[in-house]
């Protein structure tokens, strides 16, 4: 089944649209009567999108949703996704792929904050940049993303992979402040630079191929180590937190 959703122009284009219904399972089960919310107003899906559905699907994995147009303020697309595929041709709003457990989301443009929040499984690929709290957790919750893969080909914002507790996060560009802060498990890879990496980490592994600025002073330098042909400095920490994490860094700079 191919579902094509093209965002229509809106009178108040900045007001976010909450569209947690846009997930393959919804279309697999029932394509009529779907609604989204603009603030406190419930609207038919068709009011916000022009909708085209072709074919049938034998399972949720047979559903592919394509989103066209300016979807930068469409929130919660792919929330609780448990199979199938979503392809966002442009940018996508906050909370794309919250709690996702299976399937694939591909974003050609940028993703707003909380991409893949508390993700359990599946794959998200963002070809542009991701906002803050990419692959992170929720307020007050000890554990954030627990499984699956988030790959960002551009940059990622601050607090990337915050409270990461499983799965794989790869940022090909730079990550903002405090990437991997409070991470507990899982693997975080940043090909570019970041700052204050992995502060307070208690477990898991992180690789920074660029430079870590404002390096946290409470990581113990274990020595040089070659990983995949590149020479890294290996750190253990965060000692401030009895941490048992491992941090591999190509270059780093303390705020002395």
């Amino acid at each position, binding site marked *: 089944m191919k579902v094509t959703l093209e965002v229509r122009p809106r009178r108040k284009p900045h007001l976010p649209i909450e569209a947690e219904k846009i997930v393959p399972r919804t279309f697999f089960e029932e394509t009529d009567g779907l609604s989204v919310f603009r603030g406190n107003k419930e609207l038919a899906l068709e009011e916000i999108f022009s909708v085209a559905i072709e074919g049938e699907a034998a399972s949720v994995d047979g559903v592919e949703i394509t989103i066209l147009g300016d979807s930068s303020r469409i929130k919660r697309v792919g929330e609780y996704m448990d199979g199938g595929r979503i392809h966002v041709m442009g940018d996508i709003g906050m909370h794309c792929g919250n709690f996702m457990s299976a399937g694939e989301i591909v974003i050609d443009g940028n993703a707003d904050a909380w991409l893949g929040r508390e993700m359990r499984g599946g794959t998200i690929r963002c070809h542009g940049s991701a906002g803050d709290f990419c692959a992170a957790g*929720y*307020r*007050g*919750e*000890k554990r954030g993303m627990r499984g699956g893969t988030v790959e960002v080909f551009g940059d990622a914002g601050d607090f990337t992979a915050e409270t990461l507790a499983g799965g794989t996060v790869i940022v090909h560009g730079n990550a903002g402040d405090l990437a991997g802060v409070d991470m507990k498990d899982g693997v975080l890879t940043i090909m570019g630079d970041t700052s204050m990496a992995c502060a307070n980490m208690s477990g898991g592994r992180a690789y920074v191929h660029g430079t870590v600025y404002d390096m946290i002073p409470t990581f113990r330098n274990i020595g040089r180590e070659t990983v995949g042909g590149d020479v890294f400095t290996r750190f253990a920490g965060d000692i401030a937190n009895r941490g048992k994490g491992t941090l591999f860094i190509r270059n780093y700079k303390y705020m002395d």
Partner: protein
Amino acid sequence: MTELLIRNACVIDPINDICGEIMDIAVRDGKIVESVGSGAEVIDAGGSLTMPGGIDAHTHVCGTKVNFGRYMSPEDMRAGRTARRGHMHATSGYSVPTTYGTSYRYSAMGYTTALEGAMAPLEARHTHEEFAYTPLQDMMANTLFDGNWPVMQAIHDGDIKRVAAIVGWTLSAVKGFAIKLTNPGGTEAWGWGKDVSSIRDVVPHFEVTPAEIIRAMIEANEMLNLPHSVHLHCNCLGKPGNYETTLETFDLVPNTNDKRQSLYATHVQFHAYGGSSWRDICSRSEEICRAINQKPQIVMDMGQVMFGKTTTMTADGPMEFNLYRLYHNKWSNHDVELETGSGIIPVYYNRKNLVNSIMWAIGLELALLTDNPWQCILATDNPNGAPFVKYPEIIALLMSKRYRNGVFQTVHPDTEHNVPLAALDRELTWKEIAIMTRAAPAKALGIVDIGKGHLGEGADADIAIYPLNINEIDPAKAPEEVIRAFGQTDYTIKRGRVVCCRGTCMVDGENTTIWVNPRISENHSMDHDPEFARNFDKNYTIRMRNYPVQEEYLQRNLCIETEARL
């Protein structure tokens, strides 16, 4: 004048010695009366179990500490959210729901009255503000005196009259209901990061022991003629081997009041541990119940633990710090100057964990080993042992050996070597459950005379009608029916109005705050005691004049006036 007639109710009303009679209940203007006119609104109970509204004799639902539990737990909030609907406001939360959430859920379970377990006098206004937003239950507040400086000074001076005068002044100032002692002496020691480890330890600087505090407060309580007894959270909560402290504490208690107990020991499950460490912890429920069975002057509540997620919160600051060191989860603490402390941490009681399994068993054992159900009240120390929404499951565990055994199969396998539960065959009766959930709480709290906990003429028309026919259901065999029925009434009636019908609350509601005002002669009153006032303004960071809870915080209220004998 509004009138209501409930027909064909199968009534259990232990205080009036009614057990399973099919009868009509007449209500006029919120009170139970002999009969009503033909114009009365009629509810046909169709033979369903009908009891006085439930009374929670120890629960944490309103005030600074509870609200901090909410404040620090957005993850708990999202675990239970409902939107505004009809008369019901939006609610959030599971173990520490919003005030509306608490009120609606209690009401759906037929509870119409609750005692907030711990109110710091300095922050009493906060508790009363939240009472106003807990609209479907009448509320009262245990008032904390465990680390009260002027009280400890008066005890040290051996001046029990002064103790009583200070307590009386404070209760009336903060619109409190009863004396609560939480780890007496320990909360003051916690002001220095320390604790007391027995009832004979000396509180730093104040030179009094917990035992002296407890004894003096029991005496003062009777001098003030308070409806409720001293309400005690014993020292050493949650520590292996603490049953000895509990038994020693029980031995301090004289039998001084013929209407009710002289001591209410709360959440005794947490105080009934044998062993010397977490590795050899075991149940000492038998010793505890043996003492209870011999001492009619003591009433306790279970403090039942149920498996799952919850939030622990207590004025017992040092105990919460110990829990924090155990769990490494988030920890909040809030010491209250000159008065008490408090702490909060979220916990998960895991049935695969031996200690948690033992705790679960002990609570049930206390209820099953106490001969007289009037001496053991059903409560979880909400939300410490479990959120109150677990009460129906607890009732089923107590009524069905089979159900108990079934759950026992799922807990840590070593549990049976450490607890006597498996050997207990007792299955509680409908009447015993009615006693443990409404009649005994009313009697223990001393609110039978103001019309709580029974359905006699003149009583408040607080009534719960459960969708259950006790003549058709065998609770031993159909625990799921018991859980379903106690989980949601057909009708919860409060002050003669249907406030909740099959889980939907029907009115905005307006509760009553019940408080006490002991009349103390002028020559004993703290209002005319220059030394008290001088020290107050010197040591507190609030002026004495700004301290009392103003009338504005009491909307509907019922003041129990007592004559103090000083």
